[in-house]
């Protein structure tokens, strides 16, 4: 059974058709890359899957449950987490609080217990603090737990964003251009890192990326989008030589 299945997804902004008739199946433990020129509708797709936008037409099912129409936080609870193209950490808050916020759905106490600091509040806060710190230790961020997230260097901010996403204990992780602004050396390290989190946390991953080096290196399957529609799908090696893909990226060949 596929983990994620999108059928005939169409999304329009006013007149603009950002995604048109998109079909997609994702099996558990897969690592799929979505590539395409700027404005092809890749990030819109992520926003549709995570509930930021509501698809104009079509259905998306995650582990057999319908996603379209659900709120972002309940979709997250079902097991989908993501990172952002332009890092969206809670900049003024500490590294620890960034992760603790992501445990919101996992903490069980009532507003009354929170207002009076009684009952389950104490044990739950302790449990979550331990879990958060454990997660930060895995990512070697524990020494920076009390530092404001916005003051971390760029690479660590990317790392923290992934850690924060993993705090919600997802089955499916969506990475939106994780290698943006990285040099080839850093990309090597990132590739190993993504492999490692996939194995450690038993993840299924969808990756949006422009850096061909990364996509070709780690993805098992690629989907190429252009103007909101799938123009090619298949193994990375086959995609590279696909004339349609070359056309989308480089333009049509001039016939003489």
């Amino acid at each position, binding site marked *: 059974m596929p983990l994620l299945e999108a059928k005939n997804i169409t999304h329009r902004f006013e007149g603009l058709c950002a995604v048109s008739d998109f079909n997609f199946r994702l099996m558990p433990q897969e690592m799929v890359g979505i590539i395409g020129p700027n404005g092809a509708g890749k990030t819109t797709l992520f926003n549709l899957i*995570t*509930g*930021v936008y509501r698809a104009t037409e079509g259905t998306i099912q995650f582990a057999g449950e319908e996603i379209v129409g659900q*709120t*972002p*936080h309940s979709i*997250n*609870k079902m097991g989908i*987490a*993501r990172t*952002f193209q332009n890092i*969206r*950490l*809670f*900049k*003024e*808050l500490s590294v*620890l*609080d960034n992760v*603790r*916020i*992501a*445990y*919101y*759905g*996992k*903490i069980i*106490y009532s*507003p009354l217990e*929170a*207002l*009076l*600091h009684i009952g389950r*509040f104490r044990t739950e*806060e*302790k449990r*979550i*603090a*331990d879990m958060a*710190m454990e997660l930060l*230790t895995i990512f070697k961020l*524990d*020494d920076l*737990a*009390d530092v404001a997230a916005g003051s971390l260097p760029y690479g660590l901010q990317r790392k923290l964003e992934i850690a*924060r*996403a993993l*705090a*919600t204990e997802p089955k499916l992780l969506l990475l939106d251009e994780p290698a943006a602004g990285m040099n080839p050396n850093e990309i090597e390290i990132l590739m190993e890192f993504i492999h490692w989190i996939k194995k450690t946390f038993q993840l299924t991953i969808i990756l949006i990326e422009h850096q061909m080096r990364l996509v070709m290196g780690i993805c098992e399957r690629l989907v190429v989008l252009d103007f909101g529609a799938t123009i090619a799908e298949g193994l990375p090696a086959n995609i590279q030589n696909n004339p349609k893909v070359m056309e989308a990226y480089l333009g049509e060949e001039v016939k003489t």
Partner: protein
Amino acid sequence: MDKFSATYFKLLTRWHTLTGHRFFWPVFIVAGLLFSIAAARLEILDQYVQLILIYVGINIILTVSLNLINGYMGEFSVGHAGFMAIGAYIASILTVSVFPQASVNFLFPVAVLAGGIGAALVGLLVAIPSFKTRGDYLAIVTLAFGMIVKSCLENIDAVGGPRGFLGMDKLTTLPWVFFWTVLSVWIIRNLVYSKFGRGVLSIREDEIAASLMSVNTRQVKIIAFIVSSFFAGIAGGLFAHALQFINPRMFDILKSTDILIMVYLGGIASIAGSIIGAIIYTILLEVLRPLGIWRMVLMPLMLVLLMIYRPRGIMGLREAKMFVPLRDLLLVKILRQKKKEAPNASA
């Protein structure tokens, strides 16, 4: 951090270690309660000073509660006086017309509480537009809300319409104000240092990222608005029974502006800041009374200077350690210590 706040912070830390986090609060509360009872009963302080202290307390409640929305959540509510009006009218009607005169002294806290609950229910109504509306637009919604409350009160003859409502006994005493002030600060502090408080902060930082990280933003907004308006209502009830006369014009946009000034003077997202802001503003207005009308020139001027040199207020986005729960204060230290000890324990 500039030099002033560095030394200020050093002093605060030293004071904190001197008093001891655990002992400070129980001692402060008992001492404050005893002193306020003594001041009210034995007339240690004269009536005028007592009245000023009562206003300081009421303003602290108003400032801390508004800071929850404007500072911690990062919205801009300009209708706080509206909630205050609802609390003031409900509490006054109860003590004047509903409760038997003989037992009104005992039932005063019930009246104040009822005012708070009434305001909280209306706060729930204001929370609903906040689901979809943000920033400037939500500010306009709260502005409209304040106007609606004022116009409604002006047109209800049963509560005196524009002439106002009177007949309340002077039930707001220093001990009661002290009690409600400590309670409101404590509860809002508790809220801030819970998952809901972290949710409130995450909405300020990035609402969409928060909702994608499992934060139920609607739930968080409802709780924040209910708690904020509840305490505004409490402050209203206390205010009405301190002044013994209320009319709708007292709770117009100018009153809301007063509270806003105290919030931004003291500093956003800081309980210590709210308390400092409320104390400075209330006392300064009294001290500058001899200046007459010039007072109203000086105060806004100060505000302009403050916004230029310290746009986040005196304590903006920082908290005095005495208001941080011991758990959060020491959390990182404790966890690191645990980590250090863990390998030894297993070995």
